[in-house]
């Protein structure tokens, strides 16, 4: 099997800093965002809900597009040790950033739609709103069912004294493809959201 045959590159066999799974210094920022979001929903403040939805959604879409359509293809052409080096620094940060942005965007977006009466079936653009739920639902299944498991498994593999390079390569392919798919789906989100905002 390839997993047994693949030699470990010297750059990986040499002593290297232990890969962090969760960058703990980022946790206070996440806590601040969650508290801010809770306050925005509790006070039903139009500005605060707009802020969390627009900022969260813009960053989520931008990062997904960048990862899927720019960084992903670049990663695919890099040598496996280089990919490991980059992803060892990038993935722990994404582990905090992405769920926070998703919670921020969806929590404030749902509350905003409710406050503005957009959830009602009589809302003229209700079909577009349901389409956005479907797009987000498909992205959630891809991200939680494939992308995130591959991401965490890579991080744990890299913490081993002798990481299995073939396994990391295989898992990273899953990460690159799923990031590409969610990146493309974000284009659909952009179309739907600009359609809703301009109606």
């Amino acid at each position: 099997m390839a997993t047994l045959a693949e030699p470990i590159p010297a750059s990986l066999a040499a002593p290297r800093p232990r890969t962090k799974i969760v960058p703990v210094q980022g946790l206070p920022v996440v806590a601040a965002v969650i508290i801010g979001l809770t306050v925005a929903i509790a006070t039903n403040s139009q500005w605060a809900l707009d802020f969390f939805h627009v900022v969260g959604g813009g960053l989520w879409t931008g990062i997904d597009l960048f990862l899927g359509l720019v960084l992903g293809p670049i990663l695919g052409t890099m040598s496996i040790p280089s990919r490991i080096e980059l992803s060892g620094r990038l993935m722990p940060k994404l582990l905090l950033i992405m769920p926070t942005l998703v919670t921020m965007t969806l929590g404030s977006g749902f509350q905003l739609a409710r406050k503005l009466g957009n959830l009602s079936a009589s809302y003229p653009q209700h079909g577009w709103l349901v389409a956005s739920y479907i797009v987000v639902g498909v992205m959630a299944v891809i991200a939680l069912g494939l992308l995130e498991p591959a991401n965490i498994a890579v991080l744990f593999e890299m913490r081993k004294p002798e990481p299995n390079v073939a396994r990391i390569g295989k898992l990273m392919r899953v990460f690159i493809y799923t990031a590409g798919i969610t990146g493309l789906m974000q284009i659909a989100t952009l179309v739907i959201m600009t359609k809703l905002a301009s109606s």
Partner: protein
Amino acid sequence: MASYEHAHHPPAADERPMPPIQQLGGATLVLVVAGGIYTAAHLPRHVPQGPTIGLLAAACVLLAVNIILLARIENFAWSSFRLVAGWVFAAYIIIAGMLEYVFIYDDTRGSQLVILTAMLAVFAVNIPLLLGFSVARFQDP
């Protein structure tokens, strides 16, 4: 060559056949998300409960089967599984708690609230199971 090696050494962590935990976890996720989309598409009006209860029941069955299959794996890296699943569960309790708060705050009551809460519970158990398994399957027991 490979069979010769297997005859003399215990197989590496990811060479052992594993039950379809990841596939069942993915299917559970699809059912819960579909139920969530169906509910959100009807809110704030009354949501027809037949389809949501059907999706929820199917998700519960798949989750239960997955837990049983997982518990029956021999020589599994349970410490790695507990480490990952525990922390992910803590994170998802916060996310599920946020969503529950929004439902209650928006006056969702009665059987609709019970169904949504059950969906969140399935979600909050399924994701840690999925992520814990994804890591532990590649770790040595």
